[in-house]
Structures are given as C-alpha cells and as structure tokens.
C-alpha cells in the first residue's frame, strides 16, 4: 500500500510539499511519543505516528530515514519545522484523530510493525 492511499483513506492533511505519494511504499509502521524509543524501534522507510510536533521529530525521522510522520490529535508543527522537513525530504501529515485510531486504520490497510 502506498502513501497516497494512506493519505486518502485516513483523510490526512499534507503539511510538507506534495510529492508523487503513489510511488512511496512505506516499509512498516511505528508509534511512540518518546524520541529515544523511536530511535531504537522505528525501521527504515517506516511511517511514524506521534502527537509530538516540535522540530526534533524531523531530526529523528531524517536520521532514521523514515518515510513520513503522522502527527495526531490536531497537534501542529511550526513553519520552521515544516521547512526543515521539506529540506530533509520527510513528509509531515496531520490529523485530528487520536493515535490509536490512526494505527487501527493503518493496520486495516495492511501496514504492519517493522
């Protein structure tokens, strides 16, 4: 399943510059709001679900080469964070849904843990 389907099915808002999301296939999913847990648990090219929205999530995602971050519960990163994500090639997606809901939908779509 590709990122375009995920964005459409979960009604996610794309915060970063649009890409050809249909060509991006995430490897797996991971969720945590603790950055060190993400550091140790998220697989390369995975999608990370978190309610953290500050600029360090981009640094973490860039180091781990994650595909996208889904920011939940209506949390909103500031423009500098979005700019940094564009620079690093990390897609930022936002939703007002809680993390549990997002993860459930991702699982339904066939995305699994790494």
């Amino acid at each position: 399943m590709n990122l375009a389907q995920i964005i459409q099915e979960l009604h996610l808002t794309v915060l970063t510059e649009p890409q050809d999301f249909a060509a991006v296939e995430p490897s797996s999913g991971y969720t945590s709001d603790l950055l060190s847990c993400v550091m140790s648990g998220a697989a390369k090219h995975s999608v990370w679900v978190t309610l953290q929205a500050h600029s360090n999530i981009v640094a973490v995602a860039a180091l781990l080469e994650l595909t996208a971050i889904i920011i939940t519960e209506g949390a909103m990163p500031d423009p500098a964070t979005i700019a940094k994500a564009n620079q690093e090639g990390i897609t930022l997606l936002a939703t007002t849904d809680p993390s549990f809901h997002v993860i459930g939908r991702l699982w339904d779509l066939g995305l699994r843990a790494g």
Partner: protein
Amino acid sequence: MEETSPHKGRLINDEVAETITRAEELAYELKISEVMTSNMHKISPDQTMQDVVDLFRQARISGAPVVLNNQLVGIISMEDLIRCLVTSDLAANISKYMTPSPLTVKAGDPVIEALKVFVNSQVGRLPVLDENEHLVGILTKGDITRGLLRALQHDYQAEEVRRYRASHLFEDIISDRTSLILRYTIRHRDFNHGGEASGNIKRALLRLGASPQIARRCGIAIYEAEMNLIIHTTNGGVLRVEIEPHRISIDAYDDGPGIKDIELAMKPGYSTASEEIRELGFGAGMGLVNIARCVDSMVLESSLDKGTRLRMKLFLDKAETVGEGYASKQGDAA
C-alpha cells in the same frame, strides 16, 4: 526516500516544476541566459510570409523573432502564419501578421521570471534582451525544462564526485595512521539545532563510503549523545568524532554538572529529565541504552564537579571499512 525519485520518466512542466524543491531553487539560481537558445533564426519585417513558411519548414521551428536594424520589432508564430494562410495572403509582408512589441525577458534575470511570464500569458516563446535592449536569444518552456534537467544532472554528478573524492581520502593521503576528526560544539538547551551534528556526521560517513548500517548506528548513537548534551549539561559540550578506515571513535564531553550514579543512569527507563523536557518526548531513559546497542564499546566517566565524558567506538570489519581504496588494498594483501 532517496532511492525513489517521484519524478522519474516524467516531463517537467510548469506545474510539476513547482512541486520539486531543487528544481524550484534552480529556477531562482539559473539565469535565463544559461538556458536560452542564443543562435536563433531571425527574420526581417519586410520579408514575406512565404519566407516564414520556408524558414519554419527548413529550420523545423514554430516561431521566430522579427528584427529590424538589430532591434526586436515583433514575433511571428505558427498561429500568425495560420491566420495568413486562411486568407491566402502569403505575399504579404511579415509586419502585417506579426505580433508587434511582444513580451520579453532579460538575459540576466533568473529563470523564475520567465516561468512567471509563461504561466500568466499564452505565449509559447519569449525573446530575450540584454541590458541594451538587443535581442540575444529566444526562450521556450522546452529550453527551461532542458536547462533545469541539465542543472539537476550536474548537481547529482557533483554529489557523486564529492562521494568519490571523500571515499578515496584515506587512499590518497599516505601516513602511518590517517584519521579525520570532526568537532561540533553543542549548546545547552539548543533544541532547534538538536540532531544537526548527528545528521552532518552521518552524511560525512556516507560520503566517506561507510555502509548505510554503520552510518545509521553512528547516527543514532551520536544523536542520543547530542541530545544529552543539549538537555543535561550546564554549558553544553563538545562532540568529537575520529574516523579511521577501520574504526570510528566518538567522544561527547561536557563540564558539568556530572552524573551522580552512573549505574543508575545506564538503567533502561531511568531519567533525570524535567517534566517539561519529558513533554517534548525526551527523557525516556533510553538514550544511553540506545547508545550501548549501537556501538561496539562504550565508556562513561563522570565526576560531579568536573563533568562527563562518554567515549564510544565502532569497529568496522573489512567489508565495511571507510574509504574504498583502503578496503581493496587490505583485500590484496590478504
């Protein structure tokens, strides 16, 4: 992400160009003079429309600037020619059918200026003038596409060359023991730049030819050390990375306040971070645990008065050595 090029095999039109960051940047960096066609076919206003037919057919073009005494007076396009053909008026002068005083762009302007004109008008080509208002070229959307692709290709090659040069660093410099030392000053509480040093080090390692796995392990370990300096120190600290073909040594040190109980600090889940820091997602008590998982050896020394020093090492086996030349040389010797 790097491997998947979303724009592969697609023509870059104006709309797509707007979604590509680097292409967009290039549209600001590249000058119109760098992408325009400068040896174009010109035609004079007192020539006939039959001459236009001959020129278009011969040169396989669909438009040309009309020039009199070195001054641009108009532009003649396929559409003008069709209007002329409808009335079977091929003997008429070009001046009768050309578009007089057409839109123009300046050679020294960035390509983005021309893109704006293309987007806001219906024209297919733009005459390019120099600062003396003399015609120096003609620009089509195709010229812009080709120019951007050329520049992107150049960017790509430049990165390849950087990688190649860096990966041969250890081969090119002869000494008994060559190493490359990178130093980064990390400021206390500088969350905005958190992860920058680790990102830069990871990039440097990849350029030096380190395997993606080694670069990732180093990146994670250094990120955690970097965040520790940002969160837990009095005055920030220093990251020092020494890269040798067979070993990467990372030191993170600071001048206080020091760790009270190192054994406790190493315990998974233990953290002294404040509630405010934890709300940002730090202070999971997993930083040092992550580091231990990523490096081959780790020594943590701390004194409550003097500060903390964390020394980490990664040993690279033969297949993973940094610097291609070194690896092959060792292979030959074995």
